[in-house]
């Protein structure tokens, strides 16, 4: 039995090149499905990875109560800021001013929201992943800024040594920094005090970053805020904060990817069915001869299925390869609804996503091969031999 299956399948696969034209329909159809699915899932994965990399478990962010998700709409006054500094469980804190400015994208030349973050020196201790890779850090008290690597790549005029006009004042880009591929790499950083005066914020800040003594400290901080009626602050662990920001777009893109791939898959499945029915019908005499020689129905079914699955696998691999070579590491920048600013991220084709693509390809191959295979096995031998 196994030998039969093996022989027929092999015979079948050897004949494949003769049916190249029609077989390519399966390969291209399923390849297209897999390429689209993998590319879109890689986009969602890249986006959420970029934001998730921005958070650490032992760091927390403090915002004004009510502006639960956005640094942009939050303001914290000096008194609240000092209160936070006195609390137990806070190892280090950095007051930060967060605003956005319009800078044209290199790709479209249209103005886009770029984050400008005024920070204290402690910001660098709290975020050890931020490293200057070119130039130097800004000097406190001067109109100097450092740019995240992605910000430099995406936006016009953000080059080392260049002068940038932001809200009527001119800044020199003195350094480029990396931050483990996180969302911070899409930002421009400068000295807090300079930013406050340039953007007329006086002593106000937007948010605070805290280095906690231990990851659980956030809960006791929130309790301390709630127990003080003159304080209106909310604390969130940084991980949770960024997860919340990525959730919306990640869900949207993932859902979109599966939706599109599903409809394409239906189309590709019908195409595969068509091809396999045609393949079976051109091999009618051959299959009947095999049956007459004593080959069973099962080997015939399996041989047709094997052909469909083999073609689907080729298609799946090709599609995955197209997505991998075409998109892996491809950088795009979009408006993150959560922060109302541009975040650059790379498409990330992961083994998981590739596996999903291949599973889809194989399932489609099976679905497209099943009915034609059954038809091949059910063929009445005598009539088929006559070529009816």
């Amino acid at each position, binding site marked *: 039995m196994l030998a039969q299956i093996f022989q027929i399948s092999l015979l079948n696969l050897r004949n494949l090149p003769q049916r190249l*034209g*029609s077989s*390519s*329909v399966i390969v*291209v*159809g399923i390849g*297209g499905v897999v*390429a*689209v699915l993998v590319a879109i899932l890689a986009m969602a994965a890249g986006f959420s990875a970029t934001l998730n990399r921005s958070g650490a478990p032992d760091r927390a962010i403090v915002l004004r*109560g*009510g*502006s*639960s*998700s*956005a640094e*942009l*709409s939050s303001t914290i006054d000096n008194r609240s800021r000092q209160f936070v500094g006195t609390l137990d469980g806070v190892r280090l804190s950095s007051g930060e001013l967060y*605003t*956005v*400015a*319009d800078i044209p*994208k290199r790709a*479209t030349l*249209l*103005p*886009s*929201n770029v984050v400008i973050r005024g920070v204290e020196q402690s910001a660098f201790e709290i975020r050890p992943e931020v490293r200057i890779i070119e130039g130097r850090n800004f000097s406190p008290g001067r109109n100097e800024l450092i740019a995240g690597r992605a910000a430099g790549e995406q936006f016009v005029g953000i080059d080392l040594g260049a002068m940038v006009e*932001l*809200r*009527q004042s001119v800044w020199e880009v003195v350094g480029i920094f990396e931050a483990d591929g996180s969302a911070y790499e899409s930002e421009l950083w400068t000295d807090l005090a300079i930013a406050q005066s340039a953007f*007329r914020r006086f002593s106000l800040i937007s948010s605070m970053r805290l280095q906690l003594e231990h990851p659980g400290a956030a809960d006791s901080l929130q309790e301390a805020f709630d127990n003080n009626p003159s304080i*209106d602050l909310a604390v969130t662990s940084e991980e949770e904060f960024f997860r919340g920001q990525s959730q919306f777009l990640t869900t*949207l893109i993932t859902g979109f990817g599966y939706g*599109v791939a599903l*409809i*394409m898959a*239906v*189309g*590709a499945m*019908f*195409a595969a*069915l*068509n*091809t396999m*029915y*045609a393949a079976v019908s051109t091999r009618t005499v051959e299959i009947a001869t095999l049956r007459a020689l004593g080959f069973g129905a099962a080997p015939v079914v399996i041989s047709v299925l094997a052909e469909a699955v083999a073609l689907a696998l080729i298609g799946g691999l090709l599609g995955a390869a197209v997505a991998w070579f075409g998109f892996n590491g491809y950088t*795009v*920048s*979009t*408006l993150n609804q959560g922060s*109302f600013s*541009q975040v650059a991220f790379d498409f990330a084709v992961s083994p998981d996503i590739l596996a999903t693509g291949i599973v889809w390809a194989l399932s489609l191959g099976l679905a497209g091969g099943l009915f034609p295979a059954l038809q091949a096995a059910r063929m009445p031998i005598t009539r088929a031999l006559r070529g009816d």
Partner: protein
Amino acid sequence: MKSFPLIWSNLFRRRVRTFLTLFSIIAAFLLFGLLRSIAGAFEMGVNVAGVDRLMVSPKYSMVDGLPISHLAQIEAVEGVAGATHMTWFGGTYQNPTNFFPKFPVQPRVYFDLYSEYIIDPLQLDAFERIRTAAVAPADLVEEYGWQIGDRIPIEGDIWLRGDGSDLWEFELVGTYTVRDDESTFASFLFNYDYFDEARIPDTQGIVSNFVVRVTDPDQAGEISARIDAQFENSINPTRTATEEESNRQFAAQVGDIGLIMNSILSAVFFTILLLTANTMTQALRERIPELAVLKTLGFTDRRVALLVLLESVLLCGLGGAVGIALSGFALQALGPELQGFLGQIEMTVATTLSGVGIALLLGVVVGLNPALSARRLPVVEALRK
């Protein structure tokens, strides 16, 4: 047209094959209808914005805000027929997925400027008269099951109240519709005067942007420049552009949605082209003796070629029409679900027509080669097969 029954029965002589091909084409055009409509939702604000309206925004970033005192100066600029202001409110109704834009506005002037927004005059009076009044687009009211007179709570995030609360409550006094239903943003509108009094005193008098109607749309460029010149040296400089241009700039921030949709669609159509071409070639190959018989009976070469071509056009046209119709139904069914994510999604006439056009074109491209071979078919040789 006499040949239509012949073409029809040729098309369906191999039912399984034709239907399978048809389903693939339907799937392709279902995707076409959906993806183009989604891309359209992002471009919509651009296409339907008023031609005679300008948008005055803060020069450096839309988050900055402008002082309301700019309004009087803008109104005085030559060529300005009317102006009002609007403020991005943000805020959440019940939960964050209930997304719709909310703006405090000057009721009467706002509806004057957005002349495509239609509201009952009595309701507009109430909107102007009642301090905490709000009006909403009819479809939004329907979606959330609101009634006139309902109090609608909105949790503020950007704008907090001076009394320390972040809860704003508005009384729904009216609904409006948009002429031709081409709404840019289905916005929830409420009274600016109430909003301004109630917000934290430090933040009073700040608005997001101004909307300006010009006397002559052809002069939009000059008028924009005059407005910006007014404020160039103030601490709140402006950037003025047509409503269309500023919507386009904002949509572009999301990224090139159109490009992504079109890349997916090219992948889809490439596949469908290959598949349908394959089917048509197969169909022709099987039918060579028949075509030879037709030629023997006196059908001209041209007519036989046309029969083959029309068969392919019919197949693709049928698939295209059904696919586009399906996407229309799907959008109607999914519309309310998607609205929270993507705003108003509609199947436009343009999408429908271009879909049908592409389907017919696909039919011609796919059928051309088989048709030409049918035309060249030597009768004697073909009969012998």
